[in-house]
């Protein structure tokens, strides 16, 4: 990236610590340490495995969701694509196809779902909120319609075992390899390519982005296709992990994904956000839920706590802006980005 930035006027530690991403990572570390010290059985060997198995679909879908939200759009249909892909995997496998072939076809169906969303949003110009509320119902309806209330559960043990297997004695599930590879690819795409810069530019100001040569329509279209593909991949994993293809698989998952993405510091208005923050956001919610479950806290309280955390995190840019506005007046070392509140503008690049 060959962009020129105004000289930073704040010390490095402060700039690093005051980014949303590092705040979330620090909070994650604090919660993990607190839980290790105070939550019974949290230090057990199974905690990490279960935590990662449970959050794997959310982690996967959060990757494209981050990019979609950075452009200022949203994809609410992801959980329904998970359900549809799960049902397709089941139906196709029952019809005699092997898991890799059925999985590939399920992912292609996800691509088609994403392309449908993307076409309506990018080229027809409809608001993604409305489009994907519609396709949330549409794809779920297809999934449930294909299979009714029954479930297909006859999957080969080797594939089911792979979905829950761990890497050696580390307790880290094998599926994390897939996630790490995808996370690296998405980070490359977002941070180190022209396409990635176009994503931020689109989110900040689509018209300006258009005039600087960003193909806004194509960018959005591609992101929705990626969202569909990765959601379908998560659906394949989900199905094999539970060994059960059902139309109602992963109902409500979209809200967990979006909550984690926002908690990770992505602006719902677009233009800002980074993947390491999002990954920390997903894990933070996972760790808090896991610790509270171990303490036998009712799920309603868990939801209250996560909800408050989310509200606090959405509020924090405004609070930090107010704080940095105060310090900027006292600290006259120069103009520049320190007066731009954390969470707004170029710092997110």
């Amino acid at each position, binding site marked *: 990236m060959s962009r020129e930035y105004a000289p930073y006027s704040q010390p490095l530690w402060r700039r690093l*610590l005051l980014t949303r991403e590092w*705040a979330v990572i*620090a*909070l994650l570390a*604090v*919660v993990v340490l*607190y839980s290790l*010290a*105070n*939550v*019974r*059985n949290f230090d*057990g060997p*199974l*905690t990490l495995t*279960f935590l990662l198995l*449970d959050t794997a679909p959310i982690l996967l879908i959060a990757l494209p969701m981050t990019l979609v939200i950075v452009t200022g759009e949203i994809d609410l249909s992801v959980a329904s694509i998970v359900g549809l892909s799960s049902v397709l995997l089941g139906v196709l496998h029952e019809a005699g196809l092997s898991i890799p072939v059925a999985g590939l076809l399920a992912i292609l169906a996800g691509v088609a779902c994403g392309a449908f969303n993307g076409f309506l949003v990018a080229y027809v110009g409809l608001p993604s909120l409305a489009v994907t509320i519609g396709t949330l119902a549409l794809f779920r309806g297809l999934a449930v319609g294909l299979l009714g209330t029954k*479930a297909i*559960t006859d999957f080969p043990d080797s594939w*089911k075992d792979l979905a*829950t297997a761990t890497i050696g004695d580390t307790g880290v599930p094998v599926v994390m390899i897939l996630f790490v590879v995808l996370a690296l690819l998405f980070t490359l795409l977002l941070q180190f390519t022209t396409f990635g810069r176009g994503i931020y530019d689109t989110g900040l100001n689509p018209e300006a982005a258009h005039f600087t040569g960003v193909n806004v329509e194509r960018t959005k279209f591609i992101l929705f296709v990626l969202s569909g593909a990765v959601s379908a991949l998560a659906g394949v994993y*989900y199905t094999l992990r*539970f*060994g*059960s293809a*059902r139309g*109602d*698989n*992963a*109902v*409500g998952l979209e809200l967990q994904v979006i909550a984690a993405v926002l908690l990770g510091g992505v602006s719902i208005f677009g233009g800002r956000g980074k993947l390491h923050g999002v990954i920390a956001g997903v894990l933070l919610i996972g760790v*808090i*839920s*896991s*610790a*509270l*479950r*171990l*303490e*036998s*806290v*009712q*799920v*309603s*309280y868990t*939801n*209250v*706590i996560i909800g*408050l*955390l989310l509200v*606090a*995190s959405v509020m*924090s840019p405004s*609070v930090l802006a107010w704080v940095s506005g105060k310090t900027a007046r006292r600290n006259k070392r120069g103009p520049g980005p320190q007066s731009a509140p954390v969470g707004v503008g170029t710092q997110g690049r």
Partner: protein
Amino acid sequence: MKFHSKRTTAFAALVLSGAMALTGCGGDAEGGGDNGGSEDVSITMLPKNLGNPYFDTSTAGAKAAAEEIGATLEEVGPQEATADAQVQYINTAAQQGVSALIVSANDPTAICDALNQARDAGTKVVTFDSDTEPDCRDLFVNQATAEGIAKVQVDLIAEQIGDSGEIAILSASANATNQNAWIEMMKQDLEANHPDIELVDVVYGDDDDQTSFDKTAALLQSHPNLKGIVSPTTVGIAAAARYLSDSEFKGKVALTGLGTPNQMREYVKNGTVEAFALWNPEDLGYLATYAANALATGEIEGNPGDTFEAGKLGEYTVEDDNSVLLGEPFVFNAENIDDFDF
């Protein structure tokens, strides 16, 4: 409970202060365990979801049993009745190393691996209400058999119409497996034991309130001599009762079937419905807890022929499919309906 909510507050305070101020020195360590000796039996009750009156009732029964036994029982569960959410609670029970887990499965196979993992860790698994595959639990506490359900409904309608006349069945959907099996058994029972009762029609309300309501109206029009309706589905019986109670047929056409007290209370009290059947979820939870305790203490293995005492319900024997049957379905009528809230 107080202890937990206190800790929840501490946790929330920590999390929030961390989020806003990035300084996470929360309340002092309150942790550690205050849960007595490890020889006590600890049981986790995992219904399909929380906030469901049916499962609230079964948990009340489970708690009563746990108190009698001296075991600790904790109810946990997701808000949505999904398998993946349930798996997280099964995993947690395995991590905590509880002695027994009582679960009503949201999916017979999807929670299997998690249950087996918990069993490997030494937790005994009892399913109730909704079973899993047999190889991933130690025991299933069965609320009723198909024969029992079919028989009680035939007995009720026969009693209510004086054992003769035309009846019809208002079922769920045409391909509902359970209902179709029951209807087949009811037909056989009618033919063999109630020769004067004629089953003139079977209609399908698709477990939809409005459809069931309309089908009830159509039944009464097309069969003017109809004396009774049997609806082996909770949706159907409630819709049919609503139609009857506002119609000229109220008190003249008998209605029975499978229903829940909360849905049927009004119609039992206003005389539309004399009696209907279902099992008693409170007893179901009670029995499941005694079974879990018997497994956890090693009193039984869950093998066919094993017997154990279940408090006020008496002695039970494990059947061939590693299940225990609660007993005959429970008949609700004006006298006992107010004892139930589900």
